């Protein structure tokens, strides 16, 4: 198992390297840099901008900047935030927690609400319950995240059930988590339903029913067999959650990695931007690794493979 994890992590290193290179090249393609905005500030002289450009290393060539960043990385540092004049790692760590909270909340909703709804729909195929759940999930899938976010914001305003934006208490999490989870949860409802219906139609389930096993035991057996695609989907969902977090964090004033990524790219805070992209990529890689491990725990056939 340890060798498997080690090998997977090792394989991901070239991906991260190529990604970092790509971000650097993209930054070079876009005109302007972190100091460009100051060029339209009458109170800041050209000399001062030139001095700052030199101080921040922005006057160096792109390969030089890249090597500098790689050198920092080799010593365990993630570079420096131009805007906040402090280590990028500190900034990212502060924000990573916020995004992790939302993502975990979204996974809890998927696990505790979406999957059970999918199971209920599968066990009541063709009933009004099934149809209601299907329609609901279709709406959840179709609704753009930004629209859902604004709708929840107004819901918070009209009902006063939870605070409007911010991140101080557990209640502040409710609507951002719901917004973030909505598309993924809807997808999980539909996938769970489909996979379970498929599993319930297998001969071993018919045999189990003929033996007189209670329905919940039958459903559990079927669910364990249907779970692998769901676990795999869970790993892939992390990428979607990170993209959705950008909008959710902006609308709900939630301090997370998504909004930091966007801000650092728009501000051309080079090292913070590249770190954010790489950490997001690493999270996706780790989530997929975790999904593979969970599949191995759930299914002896996968373990043997």
């Amino acid at each position, binding site marked *: 198992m340890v060798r498997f994890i080690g090998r997977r992590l090792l394989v991901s290193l070239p991906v991260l390297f190529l990604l970092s290179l790509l971000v650097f090249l993209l930054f070079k393609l876009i005109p302007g840099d972190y100091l460009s905005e100051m060029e339209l500030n009458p*109170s800041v002289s050209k000399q001062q901008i030139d*001095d700052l450009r030199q101080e921040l290393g922005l006057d160096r060539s792109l390969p030089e900047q890249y090597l500098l960043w790689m050198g920092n990385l080799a010593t365990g540092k993630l570079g420096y935030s131009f805007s906040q004049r402090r280590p990028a790692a500190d900034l990212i760590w502060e924000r990573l927690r916020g995004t992790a909270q939302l993502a975990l909340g979204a996974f809890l909703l998927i696990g505790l609400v979406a999957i059970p709804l999918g199971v209920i729909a599968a066990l009541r195929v063709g009933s009004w319950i099934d149809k209601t759940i299907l329609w609901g999930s279709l709406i959840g899938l179709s609704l753009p995240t930004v629209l859902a976010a604004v709708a929840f914001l107004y819901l918070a305003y009209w009902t006063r059930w939870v605070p409007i934006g911010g991140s*101080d208490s557990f209640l502040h999490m409710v609507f951002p988590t719901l917004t973030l989870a909505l598309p993924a949860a809807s997808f999980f409802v539909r996938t769970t339903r489909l996979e379970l219906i498929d599993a319930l139609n297998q001969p071993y389930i018919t045999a189990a029913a003929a033996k007189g096993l209670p329905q919940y035991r039958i459903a559990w057996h079927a669910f364990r067999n249907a779970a692998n695609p769901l676990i795999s989907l869970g790993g892939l969902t992390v990428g979607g959650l990170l993209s959705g977090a950008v909008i959710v964090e902006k609308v709900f004033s939630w301090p997370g990695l998504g909004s930091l990524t966007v801000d650092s790219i728009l501000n051309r805070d080079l090292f913070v931007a590249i770190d954010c992209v790489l950490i997001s990529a690493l999270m996706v890689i780790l989530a997929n690794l975790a999904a593979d491990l969970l599949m191995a725990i759930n299914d002896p056939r996968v373990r043997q493979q």
Partner: protein
Amino acid sequence: MPVSRRFLFLFLFLSLLFLMASCGSDIDSSSVRNDTNPVPSDVRPESVSGRFGGVLRYPLPGEPETFNPLAARESRSRLISHLTNATLLEFDPVTQTIQAGVVKSYNWLDQDQTLHIALREGVKFSDGVDLTTEDVLFTFEQIFNPASNNVLKDTLQIDGSRIEVTPLGPLEAEIRFPKAYSPGLYLLTTVPLLPRHCFEPLDGPIEEYWTLDTPADRFAGLGPFQLASHEPGRRTTLRFNPHYWRTDSEGSRLPYLDEIVFEYIEDRNTQILRLESGDLDLIEQVIRPEDLRLLEASPTIDTVDAGPSANLIFFWFNQNPVDSADSGSTAHQREWFSNLKFRRAISCLISRETIIRNIFLGLASEASGIIPASNLNWFTRELETFRYDPERGRALLREAGFTWEEGGQNRVLLDGIGRPVEFELLTRADEVLGNIAAVIQQDLAEVGIRVSIRQEELRAAIGRIMGTRDYDSALMNLEFPTEPADMRSVLMSSGSMHIWNPSQERPASQWEGRVDDLMRRQVEVSDHKERFELFREVQSILADQVPFTPLVNRNVLVAKRKQIAGLEVALVFPYSLSRAWQIYHADDQ
């Protein structure tokens, strides 16, 4: 229990525990004023009377970059710096006059070159340490430290020479400018006084200190508030400075508010909803005119349209020499752009009224020049400008040799040798600027000029304007300084911000040479009236030559909860928080 279920339960339990534990961080908002220190001598009470206590919640669209006043370049950092620090002399944004502030008196020993200052006795930093001339000296030493890249290093140098400070005692000092310099007093209103004791022993340039992760107890300032806490990505809390030197009409030490909490909220809808629900007390600047109109109907909110700000929206043509590197426009386009009658005509063809009425819902003001009507010191009313007058615009185009080709319903404007007049308008990706660009496009289409709009992200647009200079015309908004001396980089032909044709080695035109001369002279004469006349001539030349077309000034819009009182909204930065020390809650809510 099977491994998978145990794992699942453990995962759910740990996740819940993490979510519950990591949310929630209460701020200790208790604040007791145990004021036993005597008020500094010679302080004249302010004519204000309010109630002590309460918190003002104010949104910022993002975190400040620093808490260091000498590194504060963007408005969020400057706002917090304004509230937590005092400058050597004060510029009152409301009256736009220079005040003594923490200085008891200041006198010129010789004309505009050597200033004698005496600090008020008993003025203390927020940590209780006395302000002395050693702090003044320390501040200037840091500003002029060769290793430092602080915000004032260049602006405080006159012709490359620095200002010298000589302490004459703990409360008296001489400040010597390298030469007679009429905006000298104004320059001193930009110098924040730093507490020497907080920085020593100093290791490195000053801007490396007082960053966002510096503990709050390492800060001290002379402003009405002091830093209490900073929660990254969430908020910054300022608490009243117990040693602030100003007093109200009853002799009680200001400020009235216990705290100002800056909540970081980027989304404008969220800001409006939180104001309406009582989570915020005041919003400004970012308010869209349509939001202000909606908020006017709210029974719990007061709205203020204070008048035109210094934020000017303007349009200009690229007049860089056509052979300059990466020149994007063709030579004939640059010929049109450098044609005075063409520029004047374009100015006459853009309807400011449409922009004000349709885009700002009446909450903006027509601009006549670089100086807005809100600038009480330098605004010139009687400028001869090329305002909206389509007939005059057409006549000017005819005079310049342009003609019209009748092409069905679409008349096409042709230049002297029959080429259709068309150009690209560059602006940044912003809803308001995009709408204004559309008005310009429509207005110019009326006379057969085809304008294509190009919207780019701010830094990319600036890179094109200032770097590659690969554009035809541009539409931008800028907040211009209130003091003419600070506009030299814009107005002088050698200036890096002389946007239509920056950093000229020699003035490209006679009128630019004349402006250079006037701008040099206006910092040398000491008589304000004479300075005003010199700068009035600069404004006249700009109005006549139209190197850029001023369109509108956004109005300063404020929405506040009704119980917030004592607010005096300035038309220049920092607007409603200019006199934060006199803001109070009118009731206990």
